């Protein structure tokens, strides 16, 4: 299956080691890819290059099998949705006006009425008088109303309530289910873990990691909380996993990738008072955010 988007060696150097350097990104049909990294890592710059707002210094971008530049991307814009962290809409007009105008500029029928009802948006109030959450809803509808096949999303859900977050996630899944792809940049790693199939970690302008979330979780250390182990088990655990162990008031905690071996050991010692936790992306990526 061919990629919906391929970006090779994307580079934008702002000097002073700031920018994006040799980034490769590909999005397959049906895929939701999380794009994470600390502030200033280069996420927004990379997304701006992909959606044609910034010209890269180096690198090439192919979308829907067409080589595109900031100058030619408009031809395929009706197939692309862009949602920025701050809604970039004129404040004096109403959402209804914004949607109708966008529909006219896209040159195709859209589903803004259904989406407005779904997200419970007041379409008659000037956008400037809407709350931040409702402004974000306007942005979400503008990005998704034309059923795009490729969606770029930058910090979509900060400031909106959990019900709308859940509806938004469901809308993204719909895009993927139709064979589309989404690049979702967010600091909310629980949202990324819940929605995305794959995650790309970027730091100081370079991609540090690009892996499916399932394999990340599989490879990650699991956290065991073992309550009241007997002396033999306690000694055995210390012998095997000394440096990964921590004593608590009622037992031990242990972080390891060898979780099957630990479970075997616990069962062998007839210790059933334990808890195993999968690590969250927050825990896995904590070191990158330092």
């Amino acid at each position, binding site marked *: 299956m061919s990629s919906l988007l391929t970006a090779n060696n994307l580079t934008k150097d702002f000097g002073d080691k700031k920018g994006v350097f040799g980034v490769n990104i590909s999005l397959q049909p049906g895929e939701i890819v999380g794009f994470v990294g600390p502030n200033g890592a280069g996420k927004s710059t990379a997304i*701006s290059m992909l*959606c044609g707002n910034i010209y890269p210094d180096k690198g090439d971008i192919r979308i829907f099998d067409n080589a595109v530049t900031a100058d030619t991307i408009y031809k395929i814009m*009706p197939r692309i949705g862009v949602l920025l962290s701050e809604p970039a809409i*004129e404040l004096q007009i109403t959402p209804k006006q*914004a949607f109708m105008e966008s529909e*006219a500029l896209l040159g195709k029928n859209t589903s803004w009425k259904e989406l407005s009802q779904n997200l419970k948006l007041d379409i008659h109030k000037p956008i400037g008088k809407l709350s931040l959450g409702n402004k974000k809803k306007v942005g979400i509808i503008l990005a998704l109303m034309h059923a795009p096949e490729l969606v770029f999303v930058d910090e979509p859900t900060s400031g909106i309530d959990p019900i709308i977050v859940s509806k938004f996630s469901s809308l993204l899944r719909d895009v993927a289910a139709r064979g589309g792809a989404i690049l979702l940049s967010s600091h909310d790693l629980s949202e990324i873990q819940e929605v995305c199939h794959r995650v790309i970690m970027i730091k100081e302008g370079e991609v540090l990691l690009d892996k499916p979330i399932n394999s990340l979780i599989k490879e990650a250390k699991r956290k065991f909380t073992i309550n009241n182990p007997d002396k033999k088990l306690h000694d055995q655990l210390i012998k095997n996993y000394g440096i990964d162990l921590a004593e608590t008031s009622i037992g031990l905690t242990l972080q390891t990738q060898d979780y099957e071996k630990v479970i075997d050991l616990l069962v062998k010692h007839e210790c059933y008072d334990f808890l195993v936790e999968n690590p969250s992306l927050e825990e896995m990526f904590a070191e990158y955010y330092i």
Partner: protein
Amino acid sequence: MKQRHLSFMTQQLGRNRKSILSWSIIWTLLGLLFAAVFKTMSATAEQSARIYEALPPAVLKAVNISTDYLTKPENFLSGQFLTIYLLAGSIFAVILGVNAIGGKVHDKTILNYVTKRLSRMSIFLLQAAVILVTLMVMNLVVGITLLISFNLFSGSEPSLSYMVSTFIGAATVFITFAAIGLIAGVKMEKSHALAFGSAIAIISFFVNGLGALAGVPAWLQKCSLYYYFDTTHLRDFYSLDARIFVLIGLSLLLIIAGAFIFRRKNLYL
């Protein structure tokens, strides 16, 4: 022109609706005032003419007044009215030009357009067309208002050929300043662009006045954009001087250059 281009123009013209309305109301009121003033002053035209004859001709030229400026509405309009109107309109045109692209980059709403099926080139050129239409409409409203108010108040209205030439000349000046605003808005921060464009209008205005004074080198006046809309020629012949083509050429050049600069501009949003 495609349907989406037409939609874009209609949307943007709608955004300028309030500007057109407020401009028209202000200048309608001023037009009425000028017509009333002309009626009152023309009753004492002879005394006024004697005062003006006592002044040095260069000073009168610098402030664009002829000694017989109260004898005909054309002379009166070519004096104070056109002088104020050109300066105010130029600054207004700069604001329109800067807001068309620079303002949208500043408040990030440009993203709403560059993520649609519109090339950057067409966004820029359509915005230039919207400004052109806006300025034409504003000028037309002021022109019609002046004709009506002079007819109502003074009983003698300016000739149609004078009004048409004034309309075309003033619109050309405004379009030139709007083009300066457009290109400045693409190249600079919004506030810098506004200051830059307005400064050009104000400096041009004073340089044009200064250049008419005796002893000031002639080339200085040629540095002013207002020099290329010769209101003296307009007053005397009711037609435009060929110099207006300099402004038309400059506007076209600035708009084309601005479109190419905007095409290559990085939009950091």
